């Protein structure tokens, strides 16, 4: 049962970091989670006893996380998150419907930190297919910390969100200037509808005299058609280096004859890309650096 291996993992990393009193509190709570009330109280009080400092996991611990659950990246997790996630894995319940009811009650009275923790924990929770609505609700938030918990470094959306919800999440990330390169499985779930929505959004931004992240072209590139060529040409002439690089990458990835032709006209772009210094990842990382 995966839940048990997740619990062991979390308990081991917490035990290695908690002072005696904190660990005693946690073990006491885990042993006494008989009622929902006990669970809610333990969940809300956890930071008082385990603190909120980062876990600062070792490379080996991070690797172990990946092996336990592909895409599970607790690199930025805190003590509070690990402890609360462990409590979530032990929430007292009989059926999947009970479990959903507990998550709903918890979320309806949760503070910012609690709700963010809940969303970041989704990939580890039992009955993962029952949490799709919860994840989509998290994507609707306007609170950055909560949105990031669902969308960034979290494999749940990639693994379980239907295409419509996935596309909304990507659009919202672009709209709120969240780094796309930190979205797990970004390159596996591109689709023509998403590409069209992103290009439409680019036109909207440009019409208003605004810019947008060059990362969007990473998702347009696999669906590049003649229709989008004027946009790529516009990017090639941009004063922004990252936009030029994005255009060149999109052209290199394309089989269209017109793409080849454009690259021939801009040999300097092709050279700067093909020496390996420029990837979608590097564009993403640089795009939010300012």
């Amino acid at each position, binding site marked *: 049962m995966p839940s048990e291996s997740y619990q062991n993992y979390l308990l081991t990393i917490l035990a290695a970091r908690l002072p005696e009193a904190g660990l005693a509190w946690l073990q006491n709570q885990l042993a006494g989670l008989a009622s929902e009330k006990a669970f809610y109280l333990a969940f809300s009080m956890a930071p*008082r006893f385990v603190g909120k400092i980062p876990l600062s996991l070792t490379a080996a611990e991070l690797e172990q996380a990946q092996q336990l659950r592909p895409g599970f990246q607790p690199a930025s997790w805190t003590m509070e998150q690990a402890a609360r996630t462990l409590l979530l894995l032990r929430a007292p319940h009989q059926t999947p419907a009970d479990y959903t009811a507990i998550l709903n009650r918890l979320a309806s*009275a949760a503070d910012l930190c609690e709700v963010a923790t809940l969303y970041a924990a989704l990939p580890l929770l039992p009955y993962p297919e029952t949490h799709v609505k919860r994840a989509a609700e998290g994507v609707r938030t306007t609170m950055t910390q909560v949105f990031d918990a669902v969308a960034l470094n979290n494999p749940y959306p990639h693994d379980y969100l239907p295409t419509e919800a996935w596309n909304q999440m990507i659009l919202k990330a672009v709209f709120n200037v969240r780094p796309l390169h930190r979205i797990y499985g970004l390159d596996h779930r591109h689709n023509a509808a998403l590409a069209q929505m992103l290009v439409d959004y680019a036109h909207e931004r440009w019409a208003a005299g605004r810019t947008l992240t060059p990362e969007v072209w990473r998702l347009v590139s696999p669906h590049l058609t003649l229709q989008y060529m004027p946009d790529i040409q516009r990017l090639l002439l941009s004063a922004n280096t990252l936009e030029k690089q994005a255009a060149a990458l999109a052209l290199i990835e394309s089989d269209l004859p017109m793409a080849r032709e454009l690259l021939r006209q801009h040999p300097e772009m092709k050279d700067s890309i093909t020496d390996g210094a420029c990837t979608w990842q590097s564009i993403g990382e640089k795009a939010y650096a300012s």
Partner: protein
Amino acid sequence: MFFIDPHVHMTSRTTDDYEAMRQAGVVAVIEPAFWMGQPRTRVGTFQDYYSHLIGFERFRASQFGIKHYCTIGLNSKEANNEALAEEVMELLPLFVCKEGVVGVGEIGYDDQTAAEDKYYRLQLELAREVNLPVQIHTPHRDKKKGTLRSMEVALEHGLDPAMVIVDHNNEETVQDVLERGFWAAFTIYPHTKMGNERMTEIVKHYGPEHIFINSAADWGISDPLAVPKTAQLMLERGIPAETVHLVTYQNALAAFSQSGQMQESDWLNDRLIDQSLKFSGNSILRGGQTPKIEADPTIIR
């Protein structure tokens, strides 16, 4: 100078207020749970209100580099709807132990009815049980008697006066509150509660000990800059900077940090993080644009 406004209803205020408060030096605010200007009719609206205080409002404040705390309670006006009050009382244990909840409040008397008395007492018991400070709203009418009664009942329930903040004081109540060892808070609120010239005289007379001020800015005509403006006035009228620091920052911190949920390091260590949230992940500024001060205020970009 840094300021704390330990009583302000930010839910009713605009982002302009947050920006102005930040610029004026306000680093932390406490938002007491109160009524919304008209009575609520369902327990669900209380739950959503409490959730808002610990969720979205806290986030919104962080966007402007301000730390937001709250007190949670059933206010005296709405305690008079007993059926609803019963349901709200069942909700409170879900919220009072959350992070950043620095007290039970604002509770106390409004009309000084039997129902108000009942729920005031029940909440004093709750505060004692979870070891949180109490923020008392004193009544506007029959104020002196109501203030004295608030304190007597708190003592009757075994609360330590050092854990109780008596709010909305004036010249007629301050001495009784200080004599009994309670915290005396003053609300600088135009036309009704306390003006800042009068406040300056009170501090000159009583000194800074156990006294602090707030704006109680809400949905009425009120001023979210009341704390920094009063500090300014006090300095201009010759009150020493250390005294001003005590009544506009340090005393409020001392009173509410007894909750274990509020400490200076919260804002001193977190300022950079706040700024990165403000400038890169902003969803208040639609589309994530960086805030700008426009030369021509008629242009909106």
